[in-house]
Every structure is written in C-alpha cells, then in structure tokens.
C-alpha cells in the first residue's frame, strides 16, 4: 500500500482497538554524484521511506516502525507498539490535541536541473580544487541533493505534511607543501541548486585548508581565542542538547532551573527559527504536527526558553515551542531546526589564536556538565595580524563559561548543516581559553 493508505490503515486499526495513535510517514530521496579525476566516479540514486507509530494505552506510551507497508507488517508494528507501551510504569502519557495544517511544498522547482548538469557540478568542483598546485589528492568531490516528504496524522486531530529539500557540494582533499600535509573535509549547502557555485566553493575549500599548511606547534598556555563560524557552529551544534527540554526534565542539562538567569555574555542572543526563509532546516510543523515558530532561547545573555515538545512543555509547565523531532524509525524527541547565534558588531584581531576547525566533538564534549576538550587547528594572531598556522593542540573549557567570556561577536552569519538541522554562527572572540600543545 502507499504511505497514505498505510497511515489510514494504522489509524483505523488503532481506533478499532480504542488506542490513541499518532502515525508519521517519511519518504526520502537521495541523489549523490561523486567525481574523481574529473570523471563521474560514483552515482547514488535512491528512495527510502517508512512509517512509525506512537501509541498511548492507559497513559502508557509505546513505539514501533516499519519500512514494509504490508498489512502483516503494519499489524505487527501496532502490536509491538502496544506491547512496548505496557512496559512503561508512568501512566501520564498523552498525544497532543491538534488540528489540521495546510500542506506545504518547500521544494517546488528548487532542485530542478538535468542529471548531466548536476554531475558537471561535482566534476567542476573537483576540477577547480585540483587547479591549486598544493592539492595532492582528492578523496571525493560530490554534488548531493536530499528531499523528504513528511506527514503526521493522529487520532487526536493532528494532520499535516510538507516536502522539503536541499542541495549541496562537498569535498575532501589532501594538500601538501614541503613536509606539511593537511586534509580538508568541507561541505556547503543551499536551499536550491541554482544558488550553488562550484567554482567559488572549491576556492573556499582550498583556501580554508591551504592556509593551515606549514603549521607550527603551539606552546601550551591560555590565549585569547577567535573562533571562526565553522568551528563555533560545530561547537554550538554539539551543545544544543543543553536547551533540549527532554534533558532539562531528566536533570541532564546544566541549564535546568535557570530560566531568567544570565548564562552568557550580554553580546549573546540565541534563536531557533523553523520559519526562517533562508534556513536550510525550515519546516512548517514539527513531528507532532505543531506549527513551527521563532523561539528566542537566550536574549542578550539571559536564558529565556528551552526547546520543547508537547510532553516536556507539560512537564515543565511552559508553552510548547513546537520542537518535537522524530524520524519514522525513532521516538519522539526534541531537536532544533534553524538554530543560530545572532550576529554582532564585528571582531577585530589583536593577539591570540584563530580556531579554524575543531575535531572530535562526539568524544570530547559532555552535555551533562558542559565541559569540552577537543582537537583544533588554527592560526596564531600577533600584532593584529595572522602570523602563522598552528597544529597539534587541543582547546578545553566549559561551554557555559565560554559563552560568558565572549567579548566580541562577528557581523556575518555562516551556516553549517547536518541531520536535517542547521546551525548558524558568526565568529566569536573569547577573552581567554585553555590551549594544550607542545
């Protein structure tokens, strides 16, 4: 059966059994074209989709999903979800009362273009990257597009759907100069194919990595830090769980019970906005069918809100911000959409270290404590100018202390994208940060 038939089938079966149910379907499409030696090396074309259900039986919540849309598989799914719900001790679970929201097609013609033209973008990207004599190898250079169609319906009135897509360029190359070798690993995403610029993007990629060649060791010490958008965006992304109300409710966020407190420098304003027109991760509704809206999380240093869904909003006694997140294979969680730090007046270099890239965030950050220690690559700043690249060091501290120590915020916002979430940040200047090196 089709996904729509599948949703109707499951809801009808749930109603027959007197079970409250919410069904989410997703159909994803992928096109990736990879170039090597200026020829198409690998092309991936695909569709993947499935159906996920959340049931509430006597206040107990259970989940299950299936990629097979036969009645046997869907019956199994509903039975498993019901069995799973019986394991819960808490009996306060519920599905949010909701209403229908008009379907929104956010893709339109934005991904239109011949396959040949898209393949040429990957080849063009690689071609320009290879023009830099310092480039020794290109591991891959790709054009990619992703599109997904999401629909949520429930026995409690939820009924909404949207179609969303993005296109991007990505590459990894090894650059060398003398004995020094550096590997770049970059991507650039846009809301439409037409706005991608393989030539310019290639130059940005080679510039970003090329400037790190010939790096010297950095002496251990405390330095003023200028964290570039790409690096700060990935740090911010790693610490978004601090604003996740699920973690707040479960006492796993250092921001618990701190609404109204100053948690950051007055230069810091953090917002999540699924309605942002230029946002890579915009969406009209969340995974429970709640309409998305702009939420100010930190206003000039003061903690104003968490990201919530229906369950956590009720537990905390606050408004639902519409940040329920779920893939059909997962459970209802909380996640940002277009999450960004507002730009400021600008940063002027004086003395310190530019942090150009951070690595190992998945292993070097602790969202329960806010502590981090991560590998970094950067450039030494002396007398207001970039003096030389530095390597083989780590930066360490606590994310909330870092937010308090921000002394200047850049005036240009740059976006990072991953897992259907987008993170925007300007450059930030941090009074002092611990650098471990030679």
């Amino acid at each position, binding site marked *: 059966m089709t996904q729509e038939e599948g949703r109707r089938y499951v809801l009808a079966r749930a109603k027959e059994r007197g079970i409250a149910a919410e069904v989410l379907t997703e159909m994803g499409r992928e096109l990736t074209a990879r170039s090597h030696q200026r020829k198409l090396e690998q092309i991936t074309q695909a569709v993947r989709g499935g159906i996920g259900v959340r049931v509430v039986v006597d206040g107990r919540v259970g989940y299950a999903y299936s990629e097979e849309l036969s009645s046997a598989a869907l019956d199994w799914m509903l039975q498993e979800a019901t069995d*799973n719900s019986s*394991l819960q001790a808490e009996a306060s679970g519920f599905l949010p009362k909701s209403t229908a929201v008009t379907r929104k097609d956010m893709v339109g013609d934005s991904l239109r273009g011949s396959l040949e033209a898209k393949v040429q973008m990957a080849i063009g990207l690689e071609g320009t990257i290879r023009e830099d004599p310092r480039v020794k190898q290109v591991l891959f250079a790709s054009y990619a597009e992703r599109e997904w169609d999401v629909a949520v319906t429930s026995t409690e009135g939820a009924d909404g759907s949207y179609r969303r897509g993005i296109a991007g360029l990505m590459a990894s190359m090894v650059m060398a100069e003398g004995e020094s070798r550096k590997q770049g690993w970059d991507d650039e995403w846009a809301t439409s194919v037409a706005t991608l610029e393989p030539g310019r993007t290639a130059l940005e990629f080679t510039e970003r990595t090329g400037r790190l060649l010939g790096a010297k060791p950095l002496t251990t010490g405390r330095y003023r830090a200028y964290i570039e958008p790409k690096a700060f965006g990935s740090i911010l992304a790693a610490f978004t769980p601090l604003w996740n109300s699920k973690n707040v409710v479960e006492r796993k966020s250092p921001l618990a019970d701190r609404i109204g407190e100053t948690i950051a420098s007055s230069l810091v304003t953090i917002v999540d906005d699924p309605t942002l027109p230029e946002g890579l991760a915009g969406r009209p509704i969340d995974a429970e069918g709640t309409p998305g809206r702009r939420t100010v999380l930190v206003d000039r240093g003061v903690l104003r809100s968490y990201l919530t869904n229906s369950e956590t909003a009720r537990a905390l006694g606050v408004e639902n911000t519409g940040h329920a997140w779920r893939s059909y294979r997962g459970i209802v969680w909380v996640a940002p959409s277009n999450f960004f730090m507002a730009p400021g007046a600008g940063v002027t270099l004086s003395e310190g270290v530019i942090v150009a890239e951070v690595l*190992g965030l998945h292993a070097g950050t602790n969202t329960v404590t806010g502590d981090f220690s991560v590998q970094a690559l950067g450039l030494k700043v002396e007398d207001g100018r970039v003096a030389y690249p530095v390597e083989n060091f780590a930066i360490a501290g606590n994310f909330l202390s870092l937010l308090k120590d921000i002394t200047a915020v850049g005036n240009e916002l740059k976006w990072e994208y991953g897992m259907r979430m987008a993170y925007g940040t300007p450059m930030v200047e941090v009074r002092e940060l611990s650098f471990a090196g030679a």
Partner: protein
Amino acid sequence: MLAETLVSDVLARAVRGGASFAEVYVERWKRRQLRVLNNDVKEATSGLENGAGVRLFYGTEVAYAYTNDLTHEGLLDVTDNLVRVKGQAGKVDPKGRGGLDFRKTASRGLHDPKVPFEEHPKPYRVERLREADAGARVAPEIRQVESYLQEWEQDVLVANSEGAWVEDRRVRTRLYVNAIAQENGAVQTGTAWEGLSVGLELFDRFPPREVGKRAGGQALTNLRARPAPAGTFPVVIGNAFGGVIFHEALGHLLETTSVAKKASVLSDMLGEEIASPAVTYIDDGTTAHAWGSSEFDDEGAPTRRTVLIERGILKSYMVDRWGSLLTGYKVTGSGRRQDYTFAPTSRMRNTFIAAGETPLDQLFAQVEFGLYTKEMRGGQVKPGSGEYNFGVQEAYLIRNGQIAEPVRGAMLVGKGPETIRRVVAVSSDLSTASGMCGSLSGSIPTEVGQPHVLVSAIVVGGEA
C-alpha cells in the same frame, strides 16, 4: 529473501546494459531498543527495516541505487535507471541474458545466539536493566542512572554477476549504562557498555549489575578528579577500549577507501617499517561472537583474519572489491556498510594490538610523570594528514611509576604515523571492547582492543 529469478533478472539486465559487474544486496532488520531511566522504562521501540541496494561497476566507475520497493517492477526500475544514467557507456555483453548459475552459500551459524531474543519476554529485559541501574548506585552521590538495551537481527543476501549467492545472519546485543554523580553543585558522568554478536546471553557474559557498577564508580571517580593538565606527556593507554587510539591513528589509514586514492599517509608502504617493532596489529572478522564479526562481509566475501602490521612492518591493507580493483591488492573480506542505503567500502571489523611481553608494572615504572588513560571515549582521524584525536573518560596521573590521583576532561591529539613510532612497550593483558565506527559507508559495529600500551609523548588537552 528475494526470488532467485528476480535477482537473476536484475543482474542480467545490468550486465546487458553494459555493466562489468553487478551486485544485489538485500537486507531485513528487526531492531528493538529500550531505555530505562532511574528504574523506569522511558521509551521502548521496535522496528522492521527492509530494502535493497543495487551496485554496478563500469570498469572502476560505480553506480549505486537503493530502495524499499522490493517488487519485481520496483527493482528492475531501479536497475534500468542506473543503466540509463551510464548511458550504455560500457560494452554490451550478449551473455547477460539471465539464468545465472548461482553458487549458493549460507552462513554456518558460527555467531548464532545461544539465547535467542524470543526466549524471554520483554519484562525480563526491564529487570536486567534495573539490575544495571541498581549496580550503578555505588554511593549516594549517584543521582541519575540511564541504561539502554539494543537488540539487532539482520538478514543479508548478496548476489552478484559472478554467480555468488551468499546469505548471512547477524544477531547483536548491546547494553549501555550512563551514571551521573552530583555533589555541591558539581556534576560528573560515568559510562560503561558491552556489546557482542550474541542474543540475551550477553547478560550472562556481562552481568548488568557489574556493568552498572563500572559506570557508577567512574562517575564517582570523576567527581573527585581535578582537571587534567595540559601539554605533551608520556601516556599509558588502558587495555580494551583503549584500542580506539590505534583504530583512529592507524586503522583508518590502512583502509583502501583512502589508500587507493593515495589519500592516506600510509599509502604505498607495504613491507616498510611504519610502526615501533613492539606493534603487531590485526583485524579479525572471524572471532566467534565478537561485536564486529560476521561470516561474510557485505559484498559476500568470507571474512578472515588479516595481519595488518607485524612487529612494525606493514603486511596488508584492508581491501574491499572496489579497492582491490583500484589497487590490485587481494580482497580481505572487509567490505562493510551500515545498511542497504550505503554502498560498501573497506572497513575495520575487530581490530586489535596483539599482546606484548612487558609486565604491566614495568610499563608504569618507566614513567616519572605522565597520564594513565584507563577508559576512553571515541575519536576521529583525517587519513590524509594522520591527525587524530580521542576523548578520555577516566584518567589518572602517573607519578614516579605509580598510578596517582584521578584527573578528568582530557582529549588526546596527535599525528598517527608519529604516535605509532612512539610506542615504547606493549603489555600482555589483551582485551577488547565494542564500538560504533562512522565513515563513508555509514556507522557500523566494530571492536577495538589492545593490552596496556606506553606511548612516549602525546598532546594531552587538559586545562592550562
């Protein structure tokens, strides 16, 4: 999992369209996950995943497609599309007329579970997770305990235009415990986990209470720890999951994924001395019930034990079919993928540093001041520059050859080829641990392992 005639039709269609090699990968997963927080079930979920990937080679060019639509029309459509993309560029093969004579191989059950999932009802699992929860509460400072159970059953069929037809079944279970300790506003965490290619006998191999106790003990240790020092020091890396350092600093650099494109700093170095003579490094996909084991890889090749480095000399890379095509190295049964949505690449299975001869106390005795990293978190590497990092979960200072006070929050960073030359001594207490490894073909179960190892100098990212 799929009718032989359909598979045969797909392969024939591809070869007729000019592909030099065609492969069909069909997969069916049943997964269950359970999370218990402070003794109560928070979420329980179950799922079925079902899909196929079609991979065509045109010389060294690859076309890949995947779909959930496993009907005859669905799969032939996908294949025709791929052939169209290539614009019949290859040589048309009139022999590709279908009716392939498959050589059928099925797994022998080397890693079959002794206690299959259906042997116990769901509440049995909840009780085991509650034991983990109880075990973690080693002191009143432990305020929160969270435990997870993952159960995976994966059935795989790989068939290709060379007539291979391989069916494999992989069953895996993993238990994960997080503990949070709190005292006077200070908060610290501890984690412990165990995963094997087994069913519910995981709980017999690793009693949940013991796993919980490790997580709780670690959270408590971290609560008492002060920030790690910053700088370059000698480091004794703990056994078992400590092997993640060589997984990052060495293992990824030996996959043909990077080696074939000379995008690894260790490309073209077979037979050369690349590591300290104390290092013998092995990737073994055959170890019974190990987390990263399977009887066949995701290209249908039998897995094997591959000696990568013997006493410092590079003996082999990890080679998948495509890597073999590009380099001429023989396939090592290392083609792996997260699921049908990824084309396979060469990946690690169960990779470890072989036991050495230095007694453990003599390892520490050589260090006047340094770091002992007892438990590690994950890491990352750039194969093209060899720059790697990995996080430390539990660590102690070493003073005058003795393990001294605990320190927390350090990340170790370095360059792989430098670090492997700086291995001073390897102890004999080899042990292994489960992990998830992410790379071009997705996130896959891999085991890492080693005995205690002394490295003369690594950058420790503590507080300056």
